[in-house]
Structures are given as C-alpha cells and as structure tokens.
C-alpha cells in the first residue's frame, strides 16, 4: 500500500512480530492475573511456612481450573450479548 502514499507503510514483518508479541503479552497477563487471584484465594497472608502445604497445593490446582472456567463463561456471555445487541459497545468494567 505504501506506493499509494497512504499513512505510514506497515511492513508485513513488523505486523507479524507485533502479533506474536501481543499474544505473548496476553498469555503473560493472564498468568499474572491467575496467580494474583489464586494466591488470594488459597494462601493466607501470615507466611508461617515457606513451603506450600498439601491443602494449599490442592486449592491452587482447583482454583486454576475454576479460573479458566470463569474466563470461558464470561467470554461466552459477552459473545451472546454482542450478538444480541449487534455491536459490543456499552460493556464495562466494575470493581
């Protein structure tokens, strides 16, 4: 497209690299959110022991499974909603 003089030409190699990078970033962020959520749910804040005990380990495994499930469920809901409304606008965050 650059021969038509539009905007900045985006070479395909930069795009490919950006795509790989974006995917890595998404995975890393999801991993960090998983860790934050399951640490809160399964590990008490007093740190009396340095090792994970049996109960904490089992809790973390189940917590991860449930976190992936919630991820899927929320994604399905948003897809349904955006199909019903036409566009995905008007959805937001909440704390």
């Amino acid at each position, binding site marked *: 497209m650059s021969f038509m003089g539009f905007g900045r030409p985006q070479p395909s190699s930069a795009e490919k690299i950006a795509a790989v990078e974006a995917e890595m970033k998404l995975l890393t962020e999801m991993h960090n*959110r998983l860790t934050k959520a399951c640490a809160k749910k399964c590990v008490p804040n007093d740190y009396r022991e340095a090792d994970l005990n049996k109960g904490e380990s089992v809790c973390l495994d189940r917590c991860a499974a*449930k976190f992936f*499930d919630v991820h899927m469920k*929320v994604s399905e809901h948003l897809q349904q909603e955006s199909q019903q409304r036409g566009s995905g606008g008007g959805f937001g965050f909440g704390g």
Partner: protein
Amino acid sequence: MEGLSASENRELEQRMQKRQIKEFLGLFSNLVDHCFMSCVDDFTSKSLSTRETGCVSRCVQKHMALSQRLSERFQEHNAQMSQQGPPPR
C-alpha cells in the same frame, strides 16, 4: 476531527481500532477477575458449582447494565463540560 486530512483520518481510525481492542481486552480481564473473586469461594471441587455458575452469569449481566448506565452519566457530564468550557483557571 477537524484539521486532519483523509490519510491522517485513516491512520487515526486504525489506531482507534487498536485502542478499542486493547480497551475491550482490559475490560474483559477486569470483569473475569471481579466476577471470579466475587463468586468463587469453594475449593473442595475443581468444577464450578451451580451456585457459582449462576453468580458469574448474574455478575456479568449486572456489570454490563451498570457500565451502560454510568456511560450515559459520563456522556451527559462531558456534554455539559464542553458547553460550559473548562472551569476558570
């Protein structure tokens, strides 16, 4: 957007699209985290219980309604601000 040429507008549009995708992914993540923290508390099983699944579903719906409502208030506020101009400095 006044003052931008056609090619600049195209560039802007592309960037806005990227921003919207990023924005959407951020909102999605926040919603997952919030509904997970609010609804999931039972780690005696690795599958979501019926109660948890229902809670997540209601959590998503309620947050979409809530966000919609606050968007309207936010737009009213911005419209009012741009009519009045910025507050005196």
